[in-house]
């Protein structure tokens, strides 16, 4: 099994104006997905990211606030998931509950640097 990073981008939930019941339903969809991944022993962990950030870039690096990506592309958090292959990992990502609100998942294999023999 290899480890994969699921990077979640999507609209900020605060822009969706969810009712308490809808918030709960959204949350439950995530738990169901995590539960499904855990049952297959695929879910390793996950964490949210703060919305605020800084970007450091340039030849003479400058620190700026942001990135304030377009609301709908905000990087909200990540999972680490086990899978046999990139294809299987992508299959697992189909369970992501926020496609319905135009969210997306970037699936990347975490490279293991082998000990040279």
């Amino acid at each position: 099994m290899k480890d994969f990073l699921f990077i979640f981008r999507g609209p900020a939930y605060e822009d969706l104006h969810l009712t308490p019941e809808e918030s709960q339903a959204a949350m439950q969809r995530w738990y169901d997905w995590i539960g499904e991944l855990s049952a297959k022993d695929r879910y390793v962990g996950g964490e949210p990211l703060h919305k605020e950030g800084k970007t450091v870039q340039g030849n003479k690096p400058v620190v700026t606030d942001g990135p304030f990506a377009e609301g709908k592309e905000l990087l909200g958090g990540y999972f680490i998931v086990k899978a046999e292959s990139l294809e299987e990992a992508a299959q697992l990502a189909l369970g992501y509950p926020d496609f319905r609100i135009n969210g997306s998942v970037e699936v990347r294999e975490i490279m293991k640097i082998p000990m040279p023999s």
Partner: protein
Amino acid sequence: MSTGAEQPQQLVDHLFRHEAGKMIAVLTRVFGIGNLELVEDTVQETFLKALQVWRYGQLPDNPSAWLMRVARNRTIDLIRRQQKLANLSEELAHRLQSSTENAVDHFFLDTEIADSQLRMIFTCCHPALNPEDQVALTLKTVSGFGVQEIARALLSTDSAIQKRLYRAREFIKSETIRFEIPVGHELSGRLDVVYTVLYLLFNEGYNSLKADELIRHDLCAEAMRLCKLLTEHQVVADPPAFALLSLMCFQASRFESRIGEDNTIILLQKQDRNKWDHELIRMGYYYLNLSSRGDQLSVYHIESAIAAEHCLAPSFESTNWSALLQLYDYLLQRKPSPVVRLNRSIVVAQLEGVHAAIDLILDIPGIRTLLEQHYIYPAVLGELYGRAGNCNEGRRLLQMAYHLTSSLAEKRLLQDKLDALTVGQNDHEEIHRRPG
């Protein structure tokens, strides 16, 4: 980082909705009823925070306490920000900070939360608001329903509900209504309004066949939850509150058995009594018992006793109709409404026959108009005529009822009755023809 959970984590049913109601009540206590918007924004922010943090796999051990803690911290933040604007000295600001925390923490105690929720119920049921607005506002601020959910529950449109809520809020702001539980004489008058609103909430859920099953269930559960809250308060708890709660329990025990597959109505006489929820019936008796103290006999007492009488009978045939008639006589004295007369006449039909019942219905004041306006009157009268052998009149009235109701389930039931009348009459003609 890992949850290690094998099973999907499950949030308590309606956790957010219930916590929203609690938070709104507590925060209103802090910021005042005039700041309802600020309060609702704060609640919204709290849920967002939960959504952002929890959904990646970290459900706290006690989600409810977690939410209340976030709301509490946010509250203190908001107050501190206000204090900063006042340009206080550092020393005073420091002293105020600790007393602010103490004061806010006090409001977040469990007993105070219940108290705040009751204040909110009384505020939403302010007698100067019209009943429609009372119900909408209660669902929004006490029960944490969203606008769409209220519209679905009350069979209205989003914009109509928005309008009602806006009107109610403006009224509350402009009239400087006090956010408190009334005392003394005022309490009993206000309680009557609260009972009416809760009863209305329950009935919307119990009777409206047009709304979908889930939201109807939620409405009934919510009415019962709020009624229970009333019974648990030392000062507010009044015998009628217990009677109303017991009535709701008895009614709710039949919730599942009244509706068959594909949303058909199953009438009382055809319901499988084993499917009634016996735990709810037990609770019904329990609360009815608690309601029988003092010298007050409210309509809820009588209605609950009527519901209990039905629950007590092992079969429709063994129903104690004379006990029911007596109860309906009491009820009629208290509440001489056409619907009570109609229901009483159905009991009379069992005891004295359909002709006596038909006469009673025709004697209801304003019956001509009622027959033309509310499907239930021609539906009941039509069936009685059918049973009396007057199939033409029966059919005419049932058809009238059919056109008056917009519920598909009710239409189906009426169609079945119409079919039965037609078949019955054909049989009749057959019999007549054969000897001839």
